[in-house]
């Protein structure tokens, strides 16, 4: 269903991205299932594109689906992403 998952790229944790970098989410490991539903509703799902907007002490600000989302770095450690090889044209 999500063909872009096959995209070959460097795999790393969301929190390891540099500010301004874009990546595709591969897996979201949320221990609490109730939280997963909320993650999906906010757009943090495998296959979604995320951009690290800013890094704050203990927190990250992401851009997902054109919206900005702030979350704890320790949650971002559990989100696996694949960095895009090519530079975005825009």
């Amino acid at each position, binding site marked *: *269903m*999500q063909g872009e998952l096959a995209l070959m790229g460097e795999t790393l944790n969301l929190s390891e991205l540099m500010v301004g970098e874009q990546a595709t989410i591969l897996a979201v490991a949320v221990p*609490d*299932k*109730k*939280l*997963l*539903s*909320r*993650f*999906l*509703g*906010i*757009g943090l*799902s*495998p*296959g*979604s594109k995320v951009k690290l*907007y*800013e*890094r*704050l*002490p*203990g*927190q990250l*600000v992401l851009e*997902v*689906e*054109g*919206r*900005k*989302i*702030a*979350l*704890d770095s*320790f*949650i971002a450690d559990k989100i696996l992403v694949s960095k895009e090889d090519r530079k975005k044209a*825009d």
Partner: protein
Amino acid sequence: MGQPNSGKSSLLNALAGAKAIVSNYPGTTVELTRAQTYLERVKVEIIDTPGIYSLSDATLEERVTKEYILERDYDLVVNIVDVTSLERGLYLTLQLRETGIPLIVALNFVEDASKKGVSININKLSDALGVHVVALNPLTGTGLKALSLMISKTESLQTEVKPLIIQYDDHIEEALKEIFSKLAAKTNVYRRFAALRALEGDEEFRNLLKDAIDNLLPEEVKQYHPDLSEDIMLTRYGCASVISKRCINVTSIKGLKEPLSERLDRVLINPGYGWIICLSTIIAIFYIMLVLGGFLQDKSVEATKAMVDWIITSWSLKGVAADVLGNALRGAASGIGIALAYVLIFYILLSLLEDTGLLSRIVLSFSRFLSKLDLPRNAVVPMMLNFGCTVPAISATRILRNRGERLRTTATFVGVPCSSRTAIIMGLVASYAGIHYAVATYLITILSGLLFSKISGLFVKVEPSPFLLELPPYRKPLLQNVAVKSWIRMQDFVKVVIPLWIFGGVVYSLMEYLGLVDFLISPLIPLGLWLRLPPKAVYLSYMVTFRRI
């Protein structure tokens, strides 16, 4: 209903307008707002639910909304979806479609999307979802007529709508069939949805099963899906993603200027100085509150006093009754006059911050500060409400996860002054003792609140909770929304605090009349001497204690 910041309140206001009687759903702060109006000459009641990202029960907002939606005490659900983030919006829409409740999808921010080069095929979306889809703009009124027509005709529509069936993989479908047959006889919603919810871990639906879910699932399913609930949710999201991609057409617009909002965020979310800007905003708000409040205060005090005089003369009260009641009411009236001015202004400013999107940036910036103080990070909003008035702030602590978090937060309210106390500190202390003393008093009260919370932390431990906060796009606030929201927050003050003040005033004047005050104070005077306070100060602190109770 819809996701946070999708435009639910704007739609409610656009549909119901000024004629609407907006009232709170009693009992909760994360309320359902009700409004009555006529659409196409049909009387309807519109209910605005709290914004939720999905039908789940992780937060109180979600539980309140889920319960209401599944209770089926309505004719139709209008699901408002923000087109600029269609994919995730459709996740909630798909859940609603799986329940089989009567549904209309209203698309908001279509113009905003097209400015970004995103166009949407409404017919395709309507086909994919199997329900009516209407594009609208609550600000300009586009599409409202079409929506009103649909709503007013629902009575003639059939009440059951064919639910959307998302095809899960064979193992999940097998599990669904198994659970489906084991469900208790009657559910308010479509049975397949109930089975899904049970599989997804919803306790409410698991309780409908005769046996523990683990015993009911076929071994093979467990083997292939060690994490069944996750696989269901991800399939649903995949479905939302596919529908969204099929219905949306993106053309890139070249030479798009970096909008003002981006530049604003670069400053407000800056890791270095962002918090200074946010703090300055708050200080500016207090400054405006004190200046405007001071201006309004004289007028509102005069008005409330005149009202009391009118009550006394028109009831032609004499003697003890006039004394006691008159004193009490006059005292209360001046308090109310002062407080009304400040509390109202504070809440109007706070609602403005909220509706422009600035508040969430401030919450983000302060949340780090709160976690350093071991306070729950979701407590920023209740704590800001407390600067206005403590009563709505206490009810707002319901959004916190547990008693411990609530206790830690409300403990700060003991010290941190509300707007009427701020007015008194800044007014009285500043004019009698000087501005330095006033600021010092102010800071000491805040510190004492934080200290008190710290002490309460010795008894209750607060586990750090995962923090997930959306920073919505900046938007021009609708004045009507701001007015309604401020009024709802004011209601706590008007309905709870004012009667208490009047009651306190009556009791106090009665005690004064009976000579009980001196009697009660006398044992406290030695304590005052020990603290090197003049006896008058004891009298004062006694009065303050009593008034505050």
